[in-house]
């Protein structure tokens, strides 16, 4: 058998996965899978994915998984870990699921300091439904519902998720923004976030800047460019809240 670089926690029987060519979800799930491998929590973890392209990960991991409703993955995972606190719940969702339809869950779960990890894939659009505006769509960006470019005066500026979450969580929360263009860093964020949950310490939230060449209508070059220039200039990568136990140095 030829071995690939797939993390152990990936289910090889369901690969190649169902995401589009060049889709950032693949990157995110790889970093997440490696983090799970590293801290060896495959047997304690429960993975929930949202409706949105994230649903394509419903059979992704060698981990008990559930695909929920659009925006509702957070409450499902909260329900699970409240009923069985020994489990580590990961809620995996898009920017639409997390910042639009599920914003009340994100805000209140963060506020309650629920012991789960929320991973939010920011691809500046509604991927699964064919590329409409998301709360994170950049000013001027053309989407199916902003055919003349997003007019920030009419529809606002892109939602700053980690900033928002960090503003309301307690000191035991872990909040970061990573990018698929730096997988090592992203993995490090995931590890810290998962450990924070594992230790029963606090709510953990990682937003990831990710590619969606299908709806961006970009070739490989422009895909990286949009991610690393356009998106990165709005969304600052880094750690927004690090619990005392996880601070370095």
């Amino acid at each position, binding site marked *: 058998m030829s071995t690939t670089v797939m993390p152990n*926690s990936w*289910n090889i029987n369901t690969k190649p996965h169902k995401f589009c060519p060049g889709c950032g979800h693949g990157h995110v799930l790889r970093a997440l899978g490696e983090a799970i491998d590293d801290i060896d929590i*495959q*047997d*304690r973890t*429960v993975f929930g994915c949202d*409706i949105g392209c994230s*649903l394509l990960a*419903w*059979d992704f*991991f*060698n*981990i*008990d*998984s*559930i*695909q*929920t*409703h659009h925006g*509702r993955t*957070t*409450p*499902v*995972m*909260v*329900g*699970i*870990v*409240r*009923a*069985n606190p*020994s*489990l580590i719940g990961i809620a995996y969702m898009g920017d639409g699921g997390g910042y639009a339809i599920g914003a*009340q*869950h994100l*805000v*209140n779960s963060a506020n309650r300091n629920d012991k789960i990890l929320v991973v939010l894939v920011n691809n500046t659009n509604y991927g699964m439904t064919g590329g409409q505006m998301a709360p994170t769509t950049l000013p001027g960006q053309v989407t199916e519902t902003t055919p003349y470019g997003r007019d920030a005066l009419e529809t606002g500026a892109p939602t700053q998720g980690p900033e928002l979450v960090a503003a309301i969580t307690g000191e035991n929360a872990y909040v970061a923004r990573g990018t698929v263009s730096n997988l090592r860093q992203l993995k490090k964020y995931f590890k810290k976030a998962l450990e924070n949950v594992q230790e029963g310490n606090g709510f953990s939230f990682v937003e990831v800047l990710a590619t969606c060449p299908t709806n961006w209508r970009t070739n490989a070059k422009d895909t990286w460019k949009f991610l690393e220039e356009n998106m990165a200039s709005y969304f600052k990568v880094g750690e927004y809240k690090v619990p005392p136990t996880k601070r370095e140095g």
Partner: protein
Amino acid sequence: MEKPIQEEKRVFMTGNEVVAWGALAAQADIMYGYPITPQNEIMHYWTRLAPKYGKSFLQTEDELSAGFATIGGVLAGKRSFSATAGPGNTLFQEPISMAEMMRIPMVVAIQQRGGPSTATVIYSQQEVNMTTYGGNGEGLRIVYSTATHQELFDYTIKAFNNAWKYRFPAFILGDGYQAKMREPLIMYNPEEKGIEMVKPDVSLGKEGVPGKDRDPVYLRNAYSMEEELFEVLMPMIEEYNKVSPEIEEHFSLGCEDADLIIVSHGIVSRAAMAAEEELRKEGIKVGLFRPITLRPFPEGAIREICKSTPNILIVESANGQLARLVKEALFGLPINMQAIFKPGVGITSEEIIKFIKSKKTEEIIAK
């Protein structure tokens, strides 16, 4: 930890308190809830009792969250429940539709209040449509409409058991009157009564390393092709239809020789029963049919009864929500139907008696 209910005892309490105790008696593990009148006191009592018996509670940010978190609790293998009413019940239809699809035995107590919209916080029977057939599905649910505090207790226990046995979401359908009134009932430990408690099982987070010791569990509600969905749905529907006769329950009184049968459910059936007795005293031959399960509806039973007595009077605190279920059940039979529809307000036995007496015999009894 102490058992919540040791021995049978007569108590005198409000319906909301009864539901909290019923859930305890049913060995419920965790409640997820969002406040709404008139069900609030279920949460109030549960939050007071829960810590004493090692139970949990989570107040969520809304009913969507309460419903989906309840699903989460079930997936973790715990008897999980919630309670709601009115606009909260409307929102609950989203998680319930997922529970219906994924065969998740969530239990929800519903204390109906006036509708549509916010309406009143008081009382109605206007949540029948929604509780039986709400959401974008086919109504694969179990709905118990209770009439007394004793039943609130009994059917809370049964709702948990049948939800987990058949894996359809189950509802205790009460109302604001039942929620807030006090009356006596007998509480008991179901296991001492010989009621076997159906054991919950874990869906997610089972023993062993997935992919190594066992296959991972993958649960989903989205399908890519129509045919796939059809193949998932049809066996579910067939199973629902198959087990329905086991689940259906009704109560009837004096139907054998009745000229007219009053059909009503829930608390209104108490007024109907009083009316039946009163009218019988006066020699007017009236019977009562009361569906206890609104879903599945006791179709066989009502058809049987109405074959010999094809005159019915529907009485409900809604504008024909029970009537729709009855019409469906009695479809094809030549029935003469009268109705008292009082959406959002209570109905007394006096009103029913008055109505029946006010009609000419031919109007009501068209044998």
